[in-house]
């Protein structure tokens, strides 16, 4: 497999799709820093680079979908996957090599965002505080497994379908749907149990006081729906991305997130390899 890895990494390095994604994420990182700098100047408040350091997470699903479907789709659109199979490389090795290189690509895109944030953020916003390191280590680890699970899902899709254009469109739409679904799940989970009492004055000058009211959208503790939502929130890589970005992962949760990511990777890579073994390549 080392030969395949050498060939795929060499192609990654020359890939315009990869550098386009990397440039976009670097620009996004720079934009986040400049936005922080702007607020700091306007409000006079304190702002540091670590606050936008994990801002990539929300976009990683879309970036991974874009990069992997274009990068790996080229193997089918140019027909070059045949060169690997004709010369005797076993299919599971071709798949695994693709998975490794796609994952590495996604991680590098990630790293380029972080590098852009720190290169621009440290001079403009100053160094992050000492409390940043442990939290960065945890989120860094979670980012790696999140990237892996995104890469595994989109690699499976790119390997099993041979039409580059449709793979790209479907992957990006799927990434958006995942993000929206996770956003909905999280907002549902964060619904308050009751609406707080409040008082307001009408146009005619009457003062009206509303009593505390139960929130009909609240998901009851221990209910099946809440459990399912909590499970999906932690299982879906898009849910993990939102958690990383908002920095709300506890230590117990971190273990579970890693476990769920591993599960996603195993299921999608296992299914992908099984499907790819049987696939008729044109």
């Amino acid at each position: 497999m080392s030969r395949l890895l050498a060939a795929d990494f060499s192609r990654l390095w020359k890939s315009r799709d990869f550098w386009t994604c990397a440039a976009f994420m670097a620009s996004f990182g720079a934009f986040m820093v400049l936005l922080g700098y702007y607020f700091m100047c306007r409000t006079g408040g304190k702002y540091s680079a670590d606050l936008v350091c994990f801002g990539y997470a929300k976009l990683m699903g879309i970036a991974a979908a874009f990069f992997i479907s274009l990068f790996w789709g080229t193997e089918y659109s140019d027909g070059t996957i045949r060169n690997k199979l004709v010369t005797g490389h076993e299919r599971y090795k071709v798949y695994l090599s693709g998975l490794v290189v796609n994952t590495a690509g996604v991680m590098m895109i990630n790293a380029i965002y972080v590098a852009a944030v720190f290169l621009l953020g440290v001079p403009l916003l100053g160094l992050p505080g000492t409390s940043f390191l442990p939290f960065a280590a945890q989120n860094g680890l979670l980012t790696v497994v999140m990237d892996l699970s995104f890469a595994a899902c989109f690699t499976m899709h790119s390997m099993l379908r041979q039409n580059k254009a449709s793979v790209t469109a479907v992957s990006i739409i799927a990434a958006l749907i995942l993000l929206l679904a996770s956003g909905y799940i999280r907002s549902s989970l964060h619904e308050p149990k009751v609406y707080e009492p409040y008082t307001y004055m009408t146009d005619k000058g009457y003062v009206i006081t509303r009593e505390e009211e139960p929130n009909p959208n609240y998901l009851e503790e221990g209910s099946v729906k809440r459990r399912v939502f909590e499970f999906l929130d932690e299982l879906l890589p898009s849910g993990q991305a939102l958690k990383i970005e908002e920095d709300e992962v506890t230590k117990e949760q971190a273990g579970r997130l890693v476990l769920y990511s591993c599960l996603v990777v195993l299921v999608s890579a296992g299914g992908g390899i099984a499907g790819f073994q049987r696939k008729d390549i044109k």
Partner: protein
Amino acid sequence: MEYVLQTRALGKRYGSFCALKDLTMHVPKGAIYGFVGKNGAGKTTLIRVVCGLQKPSAGEYTLYGERNSSRGIHKARRRVGAVVETPSVYLDMTAKDNLKEQYRILGLPSFEDIPQLLDLVGLSDTGKKKAKHFSLGMRQRLGIAMALAGDPDLLVLDEPANGLDPQGIVEIRELLLKLNRERQITVLISSHILDELSRLATHYGFIDRGHMVREISAEELESVCRKCTCVEVTDIKALARVLDAMGMEYQILSGQTADIYAKVPITKLALALWEEGCELVSIQEREESLESYYINLVGGGRR
């Protein structure tokens, strides 16, 4: 005879459509095997199957003695170079970068052969031009160069003349003949340009509707297709005596007919036969080309 590729009752189905049916073929070592068939006859499907891009639905094949179901088949495939349908090249890379990529896939330690390979296929002056700006013929040549990387023992080419200009076709033909003669590379080549194939092939396989209709060597085909005079007489032994006396090459087909492979002096032959007490019943000239042989074999009409 040693065969590098053999198929036995090979079948391939796509849903209810049967692309290959009970196909048996033998590609001898060192041969240029011309694989002939109409569009949709199953040529490309067979090539995809033997190249490992698709799995057969029935039957089996052996490549360098390794069955397709054995683990050794992957090792045997390392001896194969192929261009299946369209050339498999990265359009965003130069010819040189494409070959470097192929060298990495093959695990070749050095790129020093690349200039010679580019020279061999006539692409040495393409410089930094990317493959997407190549003509179809140039891509075809690059595809062949990619297939030749790593010095394969078997070269599988699917319609290699597609997109090539007449000069390009001649060059590719010369290249294949050179590779076959100098490096003893076995070539399996599918084509429906029969005239071109007849200048190359040492063996032929005729396929129709996924089934091998006939395998024949070029020598056998030549004897079948030779220009000859078909003679019908009342006494075949007398004809044989006369032709032997005249020093003519012939082949007896039945108790009354024979093919004579020479220009026949009709009056002289008729007189000689009369003296032997034999009557010349009919005489006709016959010539068959690869094309007419193929048409006769598979039927001319579209089905």
